[in-house]
């Protein structure tokens, strides 16, 4: 589970555009991971089992990990390393999870901060497990799962044996909001901090730049096609 800037954050940079400015930024659970978590809870509620949240990050992201426990995860593990890129995160999770014998590992299809979309695939490769990417529906029946995944222009239904890794797409389920009982229960659920296994990042951020500002929008009444043509011809000079 990754922790990302809130979707309403005003993105700015510091240090000559080489660092993301974290001042005043609110952090949230990555929305795709929230869906993974909720689906995992639904599956265990129906069929038994427990849900462990794994987060690679520093102590300042603990409120979000605690929220995951309030939503319903049974326990949480924070691997105490800065989540500087997907190679590091995937390797750290793989190191920790290798001997835990999970039936299913769910990630988000991507984190909405850098949108790399690599962690799930790398993790599956490290663990030698099958990987089903961009899953919008997931059901488990005994030792086998049926997953529907989004592909270009359509959907693909795949069957896969447990254990495997899958990444969540937005329709997987509706994320849950913590309720009071969950928040109270989260107080006493285990949140274990483990030392990182020493994985290193493969990439480095060189610089950032903002997308060019959007131009002004001019609204034209639907029945006024003549004006539209005149503007496109005389002002925009595109026709």
């Amino acid at each position: 589970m990754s922790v990302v800037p809130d979707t309403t954050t005003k993105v700015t940079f510091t240090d000559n555009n080489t660092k993301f400015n974290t001042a005043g930024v609110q952090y949230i659970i990555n929305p795709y991971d929230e869906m993974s978590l909720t689906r995992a809870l639904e599956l265990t509620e129906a069929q038994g089992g427990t849900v462990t949240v794994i987060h690679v990050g520093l102590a300042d992201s603990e409120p979000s990990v605690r929220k995951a426990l309030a939503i319903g995860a049974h326990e949480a593990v924070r691997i105490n390393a800065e989540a500087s890129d997907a190679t590091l995160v995937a390797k750290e999770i793989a190191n920790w999870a290798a001997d835990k014998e999970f039936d299913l590992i769910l990630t988000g299809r991507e984190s909405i901060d850098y949108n790399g979309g690599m962690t799930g695939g790398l993790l599956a490769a490290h663990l030698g497990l099958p990987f089903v990417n961009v899953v919008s529906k997931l059901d488990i029946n005994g030792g086998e799962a049926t997953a529907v995944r989004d592909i270009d222009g359509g959907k693909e239904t795949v069957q896969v044996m447990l254990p495997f890794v899958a990444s969540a797409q937005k329709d997987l389920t509706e994320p849950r909001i913590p309720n009071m009982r969950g928040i109270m229960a989260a107080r006493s659920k285990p949140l274990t901090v483990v030392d990182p296994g020493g994985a290193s990042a493969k990439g480095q951020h060189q610089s950032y730049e903002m997308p060019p500002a959007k131009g002004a929008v001019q609204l034209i009444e639907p029945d006024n096609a003549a004006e539209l043509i005149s503007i496109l011809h005389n002002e925009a000079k595109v026709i």
Partner: protein
Amino acid sequence: MPHFPNKEEKIHRSAKQDLFQAPDFYAIDDLLSEEHKLIRDSVRDWVKKDVSPIIEDCAQRNIFPRHIIKGMADAGAFGPQLPAEYGCGGLDYIAYGLIMQEIERGDSGMRSTASVQGSLVMYPIYKFGSEEQRKKYLPKLASGEMMGCFGLTEPDHGSNPAGMVTHFKDMGDHYLLNGAKMWISNAPFADIAVVWAKNEEGKVRGLIVERGMEGFTTPETHNKWSLRASATGELVFDNVRVPKENLLPGVEGLKGPLTCLNSARYGISWGVIGAAMDCYDSAVRYSKERHQFGRPIGGFQLQQKKLAEMLTEITKAQLLCWRLGHLMNEGKATPAQISLAKRNNVDMALHIAREARQMHGGMGITGEYPLMRHMMNLESVITYEGTHDIHLLILGMEITGENAFV
């Protein structure tokens, strides 16, 4: 008959997304614990998901959305400040305030339902009730399985509850209750009523009256222009036989209802910040979107003055409540301090609702925006739980030692 939606009458769900963002100009979030913020944000998310899309339709058509009671209970809105052993939240008064703020950000009527349940029904049962009464009622009230109302005001006795005429007689094996209460929130659907009435010696006592007791009816009050998504009604007692075990043993005199009102008024001081923030948030957004004379209306000094003053007042109210919450937690808050907060903050919110409504021009009077609804709701909030003037008299008496009520 109370007006509750049945299958034929579906509540319309608006597709408009609730984009609310709370102002926190003085970084007051830094004064809250992580758990406070989690509670606040969870209630906010729930309001966005389940309250905002339906509230306008409910208010327009005068429907109490009964189906969201369960969601409110899950969010912790019913007696969060009472102990967990009775199925309540066991949280502090800051958490309680934040929950009220977020629910009233959705609608004052919804917050009224929560205030009545938590502070006016559950609180007296907890504080003045017997252990049997606590065990019998509190868990069901906390989960919303049972709903309650609070009967103090009478047709001829509002600001002066000491004059109440509702009374009961000891009949040996039961009490016989007669009289009527008016303006009672939740009355039309409540399962129980905490009723304040005089005994034969003229002392005010609390009784738990249950729906279904013979002679007890709850006619709904119609044609309100305010709190239209909340159900208000009367409580009529015509020779109602109330079992003796339904008397609240722990209190005698007006101190009973007034203690409950303190707790509810505290919640209102926070709640109305929610309504004010919603109006402010809408006004900020509208001031950027709406263009006149070739520029956004937010570029005009007169509109900026309104926004600047709104933010100033909201920030002051937030700090006031935060401090009052700590006094409540320490058991040190006085009734006069609570009066100051209720009076100041409701007035602040009403003023902001009116200014924000004007900033939206003609659009401000429609149900497209929440302004008019908040504004009309707040006219009740400035009246109930002690009117604006009555709180001023309480403060005046605190300052001078002179009673100017009578």
